[in-house]
């Protein structure tokens, strides 16, 4: 292949949302690399303005179908923070369990339906045949175990209906949870098998680029309730400080905002979480991680998929432990009054750190809001990774090189719908 | 009629299909179980609940003569799901029959009278058995008149019958269409316009009306103007039906069940029914 080449991948497939990649190679080096998000803006920050706090989580959960529970939980946390109320124990319990469900659903779909076809040399899962079909069944089974959590606890597999700031409108009975537990137990082995599959592929990847990992940190492997935000460069922040370190900016070719942390690109997501929190992984997940041939944490973006697989094991195991102790409480419907204030919610979504903040007026209506979403934080890294990766694969035939680039993008599990939520435009 | 015939769809085979008009076909149907076919008898104006398995069960009037019961004919317009599934069916295909239901026209009572048939569009289908039964026993009835109106001439049903009937002794057949076409030499306009063209003598007459609601409405008004009394007018109604036996209550009109009390109503009964409820 030539030293000068233009790549233009339109409508990158098997990612959530619409994006193109324009990449120019000149003299063997990447001259320009533009990850163009073509999804139209979605204005969520403005749409929640004037809405009563009780309705906000249900609106922002529609930012993303894949990680709706994360948005819901983050918004709920932020609003509780603003109102300075303590949610009921039951609510906290169910929220946390729902996040496990969401991670299982999201990771299973991404790994099997979107990434695996690349490694098996197929265009899509629809073309799987023979033994590969078993993998589809496995994927659907794991995913079902995850969505079953969400359905039992939240009413349906996407866009949970019963979580409210402060409480849940209805908690499931023990019997429903029992069914969920059976489902989870039945996919334990499949989750472990996922790690083996992705270990096999990860160990072949040699590409590395050193980056900054950023993730939430707490007592357990934190999906929510993290106490602080850690960074692999050593920075430790409280959630109130986050906004000072994250800078959002707009690039002229994309509808997604980009972000920098301490003025540099950074990475959030499964790999970052494992890098910073591997000690808190469930022992079973830890054990399986240690037995992998690919050693984590590393700085190979392709390892994200392995990290996701390990999280899959972690979430299945932790969800089992967690839900096993479930006791339905008597329903509490506290009367929560509006109150002015500002609140911040930070959680880990399947794709990484998620940050919402809301200003409420005295009656509890939203006056201002901001959201920082995982994919937008990774976009910069995706581009920089491609800058480094592309020169090493120029010897490949063009379609193969393009596939490698797509693979890299997909490994980040970008979620474009999320990334185009914004309204406030701050031109660079 | 046995309980089975009325309460569960009994298999029946399509033995003949005839294109009647655009989107309208006449299906000749026979019960698969011959005993059922033998048990079948009906008066004109009765209807079947016809099952197109998987597509639904719909009320369809019998359009063949009650004097000939070794098979029945159903004339059906393609308007929706069930009828659309039926139309491409072939001879030998199986449908389900439940019934027959309804009261039918009491043609026994009409003996020795002048009979006026008024029909519009596919309303000719339920009326045809009555015409056939009366023509079949021609001597028992006096003067016959048929008014038949359609949208276009190609939509006229039973063209052979119409031709045959116009040859029947003392049977005056008059036709009209809403939209004239170059090949149409007859009348253009609504069916009630024809009334003045026939020499109707209301005294000893009975009128039977089948057609769309508006047509029934105006036909009754016009007939009354000529001198028909409510008791001399009979019309057949249409309503949504799901059972045919007065149980599902869909066809209930102000307490009257179109399926069991009707579908044929006398003018006196109709006067009491709020047909188009506000």
């Amino acid at each position, binding site marked *: 292949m030539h030293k000068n080449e233009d790549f233009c991948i339109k*409508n990158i*497939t*098997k990612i*959530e*949302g*619409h994006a193109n990649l324009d990449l120019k190679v000149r003299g063997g080096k990447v001259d320009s690399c533009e990850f163009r998000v*073509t*999804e*139209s*803006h*979605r*204005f969520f920050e*403005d*749409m929640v303005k*004037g*809405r*009563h706090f009780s*309705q906000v989580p*249900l*609106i922002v959960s*529609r*930012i*993303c*179908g*894949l990680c709706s529970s994360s948005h819901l939980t983050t918004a709920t946390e932020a609003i509780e923070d603003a109102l300075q109320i303590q949610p009921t124990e039951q609510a906290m319990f169910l929220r946390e369990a729902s996040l496990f469900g969401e991670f299982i659903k999201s990771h299973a*779909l991404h790994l099997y*339906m*979107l990434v695996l076809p690349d490694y098996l040399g197929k*265009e*899509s*899962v*629809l073309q799987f045949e023979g033994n590969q079909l078993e993998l*589809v*069944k496995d994927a*659907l089974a794991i*995913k079902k175990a995850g*969505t079953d959590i969400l359905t039992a606890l939240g*009413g*349906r*597999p*996407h*866009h949970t*209906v*019963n979580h*409210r700031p402060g409480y849940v*409108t*209805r908690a499931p009975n023990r019997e429903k949870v029992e069914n969920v537990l059976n489902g989870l137990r039945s996919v334990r082995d499949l989750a472990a098998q996922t790690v083996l599959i992705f270990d096999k592929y990860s160990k072949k990847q040699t590409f590395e680029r050193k980056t900054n990992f950023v993730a939430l940190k707490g007592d357990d492997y934190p999906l929510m309730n993290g106490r602080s935000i850690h960074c692999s460069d050593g920075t430790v922040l409280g959630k109130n400080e986050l906004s000072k370190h994250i800078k959002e900016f707009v690039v*002229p*070719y*994309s*509808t997604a905002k980009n972000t920098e942390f301490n003025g540099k690109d950074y990475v959030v997501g499964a790999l970052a979480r494992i890098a910073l929190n591997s000690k808190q992984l469930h022992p079973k997940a830890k054990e399986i991680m240690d037995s992998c041939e690919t050693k984590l944490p590393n700085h190979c973006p392709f390892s994200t998929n392995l990290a996701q697989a390990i999280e899959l094991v972690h979430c299945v195991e932790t969800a089992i432990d967690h839900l096993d102790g479930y006791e339905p409480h008597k329903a509490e419907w506290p009367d929560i009054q509006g109150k002015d204030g500002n609140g911040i919610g930070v959680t880990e979504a399947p794709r990484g750190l998620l940050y919402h903040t809301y200003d409420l007026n005295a*009656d509890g*209506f939203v006056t201002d809001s901001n959201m920082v979403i995982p994919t937008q934080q990774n976009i910069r890294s995706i581009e920089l990774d491609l800058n480094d990766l592309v020169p090493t694969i120029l010897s490949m035939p063009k379609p193969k090189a393009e596939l490698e680039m797509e693979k890299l993008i997909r490994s980040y599990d970008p979620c474009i*719908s999320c990334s185009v939520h914004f*309204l406030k435009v701050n*031109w660079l | 009629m046995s309980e089975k015939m009325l309460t569960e769809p009994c298999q029946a085979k399509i033995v003949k299909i005839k294109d009647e008009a655009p989107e309208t076909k006449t299906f000749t149907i026979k019960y698969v179980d011959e005993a059922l076919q033998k048990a079948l008898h009906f008066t004109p104006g009765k209807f079947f609940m016809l099952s197109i398995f*998987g*597509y639904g069960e719909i009320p369809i009037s019998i359009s063949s003569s009650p004097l000939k019961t070794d098979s029945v004919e159903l004339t059906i317009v393609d308007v929706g*799901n069930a009828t659309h*599934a039926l139309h491409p069916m072939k001879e030998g295909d199986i449908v389900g029959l439940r019934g027959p239901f309804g009261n039918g026209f009491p043609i026994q009572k009409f003996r020795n009278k002048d009979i006026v048939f008024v029909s519009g569009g596919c309303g000719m289908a339920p009326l045809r058995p009555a015409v056939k039964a009366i023509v079949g026993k021609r001597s028992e009835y006096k003067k016959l008149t048929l008014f038949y109106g359609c949208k276009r001439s190609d939509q006229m049903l039973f063209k052979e019958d119409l031709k045959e009937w116009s040859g029947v002794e003392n049977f005056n057949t008059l036709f009209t269409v809403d939209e004239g076409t170059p090949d149409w030499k007859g009348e253009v306009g609504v069916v009630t316009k024809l009334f003045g063209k026939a020499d109707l003598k209301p005294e000893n007459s009975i009128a039977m009306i089948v057609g769309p609601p508006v047509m029934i409405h105006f036909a009754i008004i016009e007939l009354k103007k000529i001198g028909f009394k409510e008791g001399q007018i009979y019309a057949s109604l249409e309503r949504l039906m799901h059972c045919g036996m007065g149980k599902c209550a869909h066809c209930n009109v102000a307490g009257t069940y179109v399926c069991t009390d009707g579908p044929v109503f006398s003018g006196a009964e109709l006067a009491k029914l709020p047909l188009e409820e506000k």
Partner: protein
Amino acid sequence: MAKKMRAGFYSLSCCEGCELVVFDLEEKLLKALEFVEIVDARLFDGNHPNEKLDIAIVEGGVQSELDKKHLEEIRERSTYLVAFGACATIAGIPGIRNSLPKEMQAKLNSKAIIPVKEKVFPVPAVVKTDFVLQGCPAFTHELLDLLVALYHGKKPVLENIPVCKECKERENPCLLFEGIPCLGPVTYAGCKALCPTERAQCIGCRGFTEDANFEALRKRFRKMDVDERIIHNLFTYFNQNPFKKEGE
């Protein structure tokens, strides 16, 4: 035996939750693939923009010229077009934008990279739509029912049935009597009264029924002393404001 139906999945501007519900068919998905062939779907497959389709399933609303062109092009090559989920059928949550102040819209457009339309349009407002499957996200059982029906040549219609009917079938206590404003009486049924069964009010994600009595329901809410702003919020959650006057 009829031929396999050729289907495509498309998403315009939305959260893609509706496309994901397809995976919720789980084992039924594999069954459905016996009579439906997915020939074009970006999320699980490559792009096949020239395939002729029997049925195009479109999620998301029309936000930009790009969306509009894409949708028209899909319409062109499909026999049936299904609007799938609230964004596509009634503009849904993104439609909240339609009621934002005009100045804000203008400001937005001057800066947008992909020119956005001043409003979000649901699919039926842009192209002829054969079927709508309501819900946010849409419901798998309805999708499967539709696919089965179409396979057999049946065309289902959306009837004006309110959520309350199903709510009562599931024997829930009515939230209106607990002081919780619920949109069940004016919203299309089909979700088996999912939210009220979870003791959460219906927020109208399946769209307002054609013969809804909004005025009567608003009166009922007022009787419960619900804040006017919350009432307004509720009626404009997923739906365009039914109380909007001409020209507003």
